[in-house]
């Protein structure tokens, strides 16, 4: 993937990756390595300069039209003029006839999702009245409301404090067990990636290449204590070494 400009920026190079159905895949890498670009290529938001992406034997833009994707952004991107509940309902209203979920059923599903992300009682609150973590939970519920087959998450908890992030990680897994979708989760936190994912893809600094793919040997459901298991700390240390950047890369 090359972004035009002078000089043109090579964001990603030689990426070959097969994502398994219903797996939780995390992508880690230093900032600017093209993690988010990769996610946007899968979603059909960007077109690759070279190569091909296939989503369920379809072109990404076709998969996008078939509403295969739910996207959780770095910011919650809630509409401030809509309540939490209205924000969750919004995608189904926009999809209209294309929505896999009938419009009559959406309110019940949305209320259930908000309860799942522990926001029962906050349905009528406006985004301005919610904390950052709560907004991100609304945005997760919004991404799941039309039951997409693939959930794309772009550093969704990156802007939150560590305590909130830990609890949201557990909550995300809980919600994921209920609504099994294929998840591609982009993060720059090694421990977050290991804690959440079945497999972790490590990207090198720009131009992003796949350094390695790690299978996470932890059973599900994951518990918070697993972070202190020897295999977890060992893997985390290995990945940290792989992501160790030579000083000159920092300079550029």
């Amino acid at each position, binding site marked *: 993937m090359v972004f035009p400009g002078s000089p043109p920026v090579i964001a990603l190079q030689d990426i070959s990756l097969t994502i398994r159905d219903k797996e939780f895949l995390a992508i880690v890498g230093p900032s600017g390595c093209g993690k988010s670009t990769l996610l946007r290529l899968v979603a059909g938001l960007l077109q690759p300069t070279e190569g091909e992406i296939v989503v369920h034997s379809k072109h990404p833009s076709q998969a996008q039209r078939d*509403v295969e994707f739910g996207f959780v952004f770095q910011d919650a991107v809630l509409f*401030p003029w809509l309540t939490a509940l209205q924000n969750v309902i*919004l995608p189904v209203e926009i999809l209209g006839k294309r929505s896999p979920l009938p419009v009559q059923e959406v309110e019940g599903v949305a209320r259930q999702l908000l309860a799942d992300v522990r926001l029962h009682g906050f349905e009528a609150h406006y985004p301005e009245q919610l904390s950052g973590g709560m907004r991100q939970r609304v945005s997760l519920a919004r991404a799941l409301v039309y039951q997409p087959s693939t959930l794309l998450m772009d550093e969704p908890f990156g802007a939150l404090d560590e305590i909130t992030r830990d609890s949201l990680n557990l909550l995300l897994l809980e919600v994921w067990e209920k609504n099994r979708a294929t998840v591609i989760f982009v993060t720059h936190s090694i421990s977050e990636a290991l804690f959440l994912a079945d497999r972790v893809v490590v990207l090198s600094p720009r131009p992003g290449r796949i350094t390695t793919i790690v299978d996470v040997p932890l059973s599900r459901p994951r518990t918070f204590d697993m972070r202190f298991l020897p295999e977890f700390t060992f893997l985390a240390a290995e990945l940290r070494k792989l992501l160790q950047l030579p000083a000159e890369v920092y300079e550029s």
Partner: protein
Amino acid sequence: MVRKNARQAASPLTEWLPALILFLSTLILWEGLVRGLDVPRYILPSPSEIGAVITQRWQDLVRQVAWTMLEAIGGFLLGSILAFLSASLFVHARLIERSMYPWAIVLQTVPIVAIAPLLTIWLGFGTAPKVVIAAIVCFFPVLVNTTRGLRLVSAQALELMQILSASRWQLYIRLRVPSAMPFLFTSLKVAASLSVIGAIVGEFTGADRGIGYVVVSAAYRLDTPLLFAGIVFSSFAAVIFFLLISGIERILLFWPGARIED
């Protein structure tokens, strides 16, 4: 979390009392100076003389100012609606924006007082030129602000709509228009005051009614108390118009954090 008011809300009385006291003491000082120094009436009438003119002629003054406000509101609606439609066109077609926007700026830089007589020649001495002048002065601020508001949508919000394969119309009506509302109302409040000025300028260049006409003819006759009464009534009407728009804003921008503080 519901945000608490940072500042304890003052009661209306303590909020307004200092301004009211300043106003009253200015009036008293003014009255005393005019009487004490024997200032000629045609230079500066005392507040009591102005008050006498107002109580004597208030019915006629209300009728005149109502006429002016009708012209102002007509121009305000015409100018604002045209500006909103143009801004909507701009965000959908860059080419239209590139061809029209520079001319909108040119229109803005031409002094309205210079165009007013021309419009009077073209459209006569009736209501039409006043409405058009008011519309012209309203057009530009609303155009600029609305265009900015319609554009100021985050890249991620656009991607969200793209993920949902939203149509251009859905993107416009569900995302752009609500995002632009705070900007629109900020400019409408400016336009409300400008439209009254526009209508009065129109009346200066030729009219047989309206508060602008009252002011001009009072000035010819050196009837300064009546002139002051005209100023009082037109300011009062402009303030009411502004408050009306603020009230509508309060209703339409109901969500927390919507209003751009002024």
